[in-house]
């Protein structure tokens, strides 16, 4: 069996699946149940001076009859006393020595406040700290969370304060609500962080009640922007993880977060360089039990691919990412329709005709459309809209000889 164990900047866990800081990791009782079911680690819901939460707190985007494609929350950090959280953390760590217990922290932006909370937290025996510089709602209005994580200098400074006293590895959790996450990642590294985790939630308004005109979630007739997460944000998270991983100035490990709900999602994050992955929304939707398929699916995948450990998988897709200017402009594919499996819905036709490049045509005698392969620009749209698996495939056809990229063209001209 493949080795699933991980070491993220010195934090060890039996598998890469951690609970992300959030409602599922709010108490010792929950974290213990999660560990019992197989989770490899947990980032405790952010500990700090207790806050008062609103009701309601969550809202979501449903899509095509499916619930919670995206989730939005305006919940703040832990509303429980620091001592109570720390006592439970100590207890859980004692009961589960093998699992990674990481504590998310957020306090006022003073050196003393951070020194104090780091020392108290590490007294529990936890395996590491995660600095919450990402929370985009509520706490940021108080000068914490994303208010720190959006300014590289603050990120660097507070990380450095923490590192002055921390004895365990320090992860800095980044907000995606920034123009280029690499600047913040570099600042965390400069401050001495042992790893980063990303992404925290995206600023969002999920929707509005069309009868009352109140955006969701409704708190007594008013609302506020929240943090968006769930399957909808995965592509954004993958891009941000890869941009940090590919940054030549950035060298510390990454814990991937953002819309991970299955082992497939996890593999994708690991292929882009993530050391571990963190999961929250999927647990909020289906519970801790999803870990069983995540573990089994990942094990079987590694076995089928012949990998002995996650290290062989990690970052394997990064060499396949490059700037647009390096892409081969001579590479050419065209769409092919399999008439045997085509069900005649003609969605490819209308998509190409109205929404793309007018290369698919209807026929008089049958419902299977016809692709003009000479005109086809190989955009993929027809294959994307086709409801039948492998009915429309993109086949490579000979293009001009050799490779040609925009960057090569440009340098040839200059």
């Amino acid at each position, binding site marked *: 069996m493949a080795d699933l164990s991980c070491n993220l900047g010195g934090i060890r866990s039996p598998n890469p699946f951690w609970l992300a800081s959030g409602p599922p990791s709010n108490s010792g009782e929950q974290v213990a149940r999660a560990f019992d079911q197989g989770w490899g680690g947990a980032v405790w819901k952010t500990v700090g001076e207790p806050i008062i939460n609103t009701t309601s707190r969550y809202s979501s985007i449903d899509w095509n009859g499916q619930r919670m494609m995206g989730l939005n929350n305006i919940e703040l950090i832990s509303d429980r006393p620091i001592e109570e959280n720390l006592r439970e953390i100590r207890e859980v760590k004692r009961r589960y020595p093998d699992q990674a217990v990481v504590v998310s922290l957020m306090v006022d932006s003073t050196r003393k406040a951070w020194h104090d909370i780091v020392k108290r937290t590490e007294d529990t025996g936890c395996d590491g700290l995660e600095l919450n510089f990402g929370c985009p709602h509520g706490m940021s209005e108080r000068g914490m969370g994303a208010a720190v994580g959006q300014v590289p200098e603050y990120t660097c400074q507070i990380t450095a304060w923490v590192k002055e006293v921390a004895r365990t590895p320090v992860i800095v959790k980044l907000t995606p609500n920034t123009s280029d996450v690499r600047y913040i990642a570099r600042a965390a590294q400069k401050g001495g962080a042992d790893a980063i985790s990303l992404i925290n939630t995206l600023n969002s308004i999920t929707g509005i009640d069309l009868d009352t005109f109140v955006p969701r979630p409704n708190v007594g007739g008013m609302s506020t922007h929240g943090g968006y997460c769930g399957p909808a944000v995965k592509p954004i998270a993958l891009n941000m993880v890869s941009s940090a991983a590919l940054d030549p100035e950035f060298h510390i490990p990454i814990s991937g977060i953002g819309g991970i709900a299955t082992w497939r999602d996890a593999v994708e994050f690991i292929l882009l360089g993530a050391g571990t992955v963190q999961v929250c929304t999927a647990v909020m939707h289906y519970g801790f039990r999803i870990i069983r398929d995540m573990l089994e699916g990942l094990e079987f995948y590694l076995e089928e691919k012949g990998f002995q450990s996650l290290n062989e998988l990690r970052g394997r897709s990064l060499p396949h990412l490059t700037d647009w200017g390096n892409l081969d402009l001579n590479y050419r594919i065209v769409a092919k329709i399999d008439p045997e499996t085509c069900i*005649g819905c003609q969605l490819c036709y209308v998509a190409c005709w109205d929404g793309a490049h007018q290369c698919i045509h209807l026929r008089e005698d049958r419902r299977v459309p016809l692709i003009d392969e000479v005109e086809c620009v190989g955009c993929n749209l027809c294959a994307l809209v086709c*409801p039948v698996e492998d009915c429309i495939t993109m086949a490579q056809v000979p293009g001009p000889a050799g490779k040609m990229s925009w960057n090569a063209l440009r340098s040839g001209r200059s």
Partner: protein
Amino acid sequence: MSEIRLAPKLRPEEYRTNFGDINRALSPGAALAEASRCLFCFDAPCTAACPTHIDVPAFIKKIATGNMRGSAREILSANILGASCARVCPVEVLCEGACVMHGRGEPPIQIGRLQRHATDWAFQNPVQLFAPGSARDKRVALIGAGPASLSCAAELAKMGYGAVILDRHPLPGGLNTYGIAYYKMTPEESLREINLVRSLGVKIQCGVQVGHDLTLEDLEADFDAIFIGVGLGKTRRLGIPGENLAGVYEAIDFIEEVKSKPFAEIDVGRRVVVIGAGNTSIDCATQARRLGAEWVAIVYRRGESEMPAYHYEYELAKQDGVQFLWHAQPVEIQGNAFVQRLVCVRTRSGAREASGSFRADEIPESRFFIETDMVIEALGQDPRSSFLEKLPGVQLEKGRVVVDPGTGQTANPKYFSGGDCANGGKEVVDAVADGKRAAAGIDRYLRAVGPRPPGL
């Protein structure tokens, strides 16, 4: 008289269960999930398969977006009886049969149930879906208040024509009110739909028999065009001895009784034989069972493969415990005032006939009896020849009104026709389509005729 053996009456809740909705309404959540399955095909095959060409993907996507009013209007603008059709259409051979999901090896989108979801909404949330057109100076009389006339009249009213429907029955709707199995559609559901037609300004006069209470000449004088939508007549008789015994029913009369009387007042025998294996026969057999008959059999002179009933109906009858006796030709009904037994002979498939079905050849010396307390003859309906033959200049063929298929116009240009009396007996949705086409034909005709002479 003591021989008659009636099935015992059922408890009220048993009637309610037996005649409750056979295809229950979708919950809003289930409708949304089903609507979301629809692929939204371009030039969709389901729309092509619908005789009234409802834009099926359009109305389904409107359900998915919560635009229920638009969804209902999408359906009802193409088919004013869309609520009935959602309940009674043989969807497996029409829209759902054409669904591309079959090609993916998946169940088709439940178009009928979604259509019902949207149209039910329209009746539960009274909103104006249509307005009558600006008034024109022409009036059309429509004889018969069945689906063809209702559809034609609604279209005419939307164009601004005056439309007056005349029907000899106490209630409008024709077979929609009187002739559909109760568990598929109640009379109330038919009547609420007719109120939608009335809301467009269509006048419906019931209890009026043309040729009796007023003459065709009266109508010709008062109206600029006349639409004939009288449907079919009596059930065809077998012409065998004993048909006049008490306990022998015609299918249409039996179904009408189920639709117009309280269930507890309808007598059925303990043992019931239905002759014929069409969809109407199934309606009779299942309803007799649901009224309490202990044993119901359908007797058909040909084999299973030649049964005209739809597969769905056949399955329904089997689920209701209806027996099927294939290759049995009734030759006599015996009894003593009341029906006691049906005498049949066995048949076998003979040569193929022009119609494509095999001739049922009687097997000599094969007489047998079926003990029964009630016989329902369901052999199809005869045309209403005696009425149709009086229509001036209107040409008939095999009892059907001959019409231009594109316009519904008869050989007499002032007369138009559609529905069962012109097509020989098809589905409600075909009658609605006929009515729509005829309305367009009437519009073209009346525009060509020009303004009414003054004084009329």
